[in-house]
């Protein structure tokens, strides 16, 4: 540790003002604070600080995402070998998925962090950790067959236009990962939906059983089936364990639940938002079960299945709870969550073009979050005004 510290101290002057590597100051700074807790001390205000910082908070979210990543990798391999009809071992399936998913994670971090580093250097600020989470979520909410070059474009677009132009992490009002997905969805719809993208049909780095998979193989997600007027083939237990086609990290309710427990326990995600998303979704689905017309299959999916298929759980746990884009007031969080849950089910049931509603529901929620806050804050303001007028 001491040797490392000495080395860091030795190379530090190169990155300071006037040093020959000054152009990489933000990168050096990022790595230094990653290795060592910064030892700058308080100058004004409180003399002691809570040990929590945004690095640790973001790390907790990344840790909470790991079960989804690991299960997602396994499920990618599982679906591949299932489509090929080949009996593969656990490790073969996992390794196939690992090879399919890892490049997406690497690309996601490379593109996003590169932009973050450049912007931090340009604005002479510290690197902000927000992208550590975004960069892990993005690979989990896209189909496995999404090409890497498209991913690059989408990430560059959303990091720049949904975040950096507003001032970086903490100032954006749309969830960056969801803007990436929305960009992909509207710019490259054939790569993002339908029934050809959910199962990896090609070999990954020469590994896999693609030769056994028939040309033109299709596999629809449960919501895709229902939207197309077919019966859902997956069982409820498959939906919960996650052995169904879908975006890489969204399928397993169990993996998401582990993440949810970590987030709630550490207090990083808001319990109020998470719960009210589920309540809003369940009540709306229940309503549709009662009043939905018989030929609208999606409206007639039982309410508990609505909550476990598609991106509902993943969105509720990891994206609706994004503290930056959700309401800041405590009461507003309930309304926001309920709105998202309800809207997601409404879009699922009454939008003919798109079987899943969670993405648009959360983006809509992001859009009205400031309005919800405004109402709560205004009521506090009115209370104060009434006090004078009394």
């Amino acid at each position: 540790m001491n040797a490392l510290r000495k080395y860091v101290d030795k190379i530090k002057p190169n990155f300071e003002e006037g040093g020959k590597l000054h152009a990489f100051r933000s990168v050096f700074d990022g790595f230094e604070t990653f290795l060592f807790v910064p030892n700058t001390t308080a100058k004004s205000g409180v003399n002691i600080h809570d040990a929590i910082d945004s690095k640790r908070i973001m790390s907790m979210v990344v840790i909470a995402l790991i079960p989804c990543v690991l299960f997602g990798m396994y499920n990618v391999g599982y679906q591949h070998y299932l489509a090929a009809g080949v009996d593969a071992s656990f490790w073969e399936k996992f390794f196939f998925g690992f090879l399919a998913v890892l490049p997406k994670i690497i690309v996601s971090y490379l593109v996003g962090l590169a932009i973050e580093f450049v912007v931090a250097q340009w604005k002479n600020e510290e690197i902000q950790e927000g992208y550590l989470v975004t960069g892990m979520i993005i690979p989990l909410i896209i189909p496995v067959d999404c090409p890497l070059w498209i991913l690059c474009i989408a990430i560059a677009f959303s990091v720049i236009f949904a975040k950096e132009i507003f001032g970086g992490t903490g100032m954006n009002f749309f969830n960056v990962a969801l803007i990436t997905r929305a960009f992909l969805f509207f710019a490259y719809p054939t790569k993002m939906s339908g029934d050809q993208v959910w199962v990896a049909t090609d070999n990954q780095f020469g590994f896999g059983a693609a030769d056994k998979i028939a040309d033109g193989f299709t596999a629809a997600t449960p919501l895709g089936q229902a939207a197309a007027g077919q019966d859902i083939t997956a069982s409820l237990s498959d939906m919960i364990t996650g052995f169904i086609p879908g975006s890489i990290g969204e399928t397993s309710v169990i993996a998401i639940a582990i993440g949810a427990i970590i987030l709630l326990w550490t207090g990083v995600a808001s319990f109020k938002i998470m719960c009210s998303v589920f309540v809003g979704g369940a009540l709306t689905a229940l309503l549709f079960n009662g009043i939905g017309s018989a030929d609208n299959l999606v409206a007639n999916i039982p309410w508990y299945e609505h909550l476990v298929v598609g991106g509902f759980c993943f969105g509720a746990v990891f994206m609706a709870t994004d503290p930056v884009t959700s309401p800041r007031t405590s009461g507003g969080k309930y309304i926001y969550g309920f709105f998202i849950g309800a809207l997601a089910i409404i879009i699922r049931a009454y939008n003919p073009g798109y079987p899943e509603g969670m993405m648009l529901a959360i983006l809509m929620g992001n859009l009205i979050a400031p309005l919800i806050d405004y109402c709560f804050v205004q009521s506090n303001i009115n209370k104060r005004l009434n006090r004078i007028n009394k």
Partner: protein
Amino acid sequence: MANVIKLRKGLDINLKGKATEEIANVKATGLYALVPDDFVGVKPKVVVKEGDNVKAGGVLFIDKKHPEVKFVSPVAGKVTAVERGERRKVLSVQVTAAAQQEYEDFGKKNVASLKGSEVLATLLEAGMFGFFRQRPYDVTPNPEVAPRAIFVSAFSSMPLAQNFEFALNGNEADFQTGLDALARIAPTYLGVSSKQSAAALTAAKNVTVTVFDGPNPAGNVGVQINHVAPVNKGEVVWTVNPEVVIFIGRLFNTGKVDMTRTIAVVGSEVKAPKYAKVLVGQQITPLLEGNISTDKHVRIINGNVLTGIKSNKDAFLGAQSTEITVIPEGDDVHEMLGWIMPRFNEFSTSRSYFSWLLGKKEYAPDARIKGGERHMIMSGEYDSVFPMDIYPEQLLKAIITGDIDKMEQLGIYEVAPEDFAVAEFVDSSKVELQRIVREGLNMLRAEME
């Protein structure tokens, strides 16, 4: 039976180095100073020259805007220095104590027979009024504007704060006289803690006693005002520290200015944390001589860890400080991979640390910020430790953007920087909340006055 108000929001931080309730013997250095910066909002005009002799209670400087507000010497002696900084700003007026202490005589007075204006005149004359604060703006008040009420909080809930009940021992009569005097000026409210049982507090006469039960910052007078009778736009209330109430009582009971107070010398780096009887403005050197650890960098704080000012051994006890706290500075610590290590010795409100498991463990945090400054990312952090009917985050954002209308609407008239101290402590984005609030108050005051 006094009204009891229960507060849920807030945070008590359990720190190492609590003072044992005994008085240490401390010999003063003989050098005293009054620091104008301790009296926020005052533009000092020094009325003595180097070499002048003053009595205890003799005027050292006055407020340029309100010359009737005087600031007086705590001791009799010779003015040895008027220390000035950039642009001739007065940093301190120093007095070396004479061997024989003489006091200005303001005359013994029976408070009950005085009118409010007479009480006020005496307080102004004897330099006691300078210790008052007013809401809005948390500054030394304008004596021409009559306050709606006067608030006194008889306890501080800050970490390692002085136990006022202990300091009150033997001063009960003066304290009551002080309250009587304040009550002549305006309705006076006394906030006491549910843990305090001294009759001088719970059964104080001529004032409205309210009991507060809850975590820090329940002892902040601002929090108490917000729950008893919030400050509206256009109103003024005065706040007075309980120590100053004792000074006022002594003034009327003896006719002399005697600014002796009992302070706590505390913190993890103090070898024997105890109380000491000192004079306002006394040099703090002897309080710490041989009493602090020498094996690491230490930070000496004039006041408590959350609202106190970084100071040094040769500095003078602040006019409002009731503690001297010494903690490790921490600028020589290199901690690896802090974002993932368990860090059992670190206190945090976050469950990603283990403070919640370790129960009553006493912590010895250093002065590191422990993270980089970010935009406000997490929501509800400030809210959970801010026991007032105010949206702290929205108010702070209004201040940052300089939106005066919004500041007013969101209740800036009710707050002081110290009310944001706990929020600043828990903030994961490490924003300097107290500095921002102070700037906001100054901005508003410049605009309104």
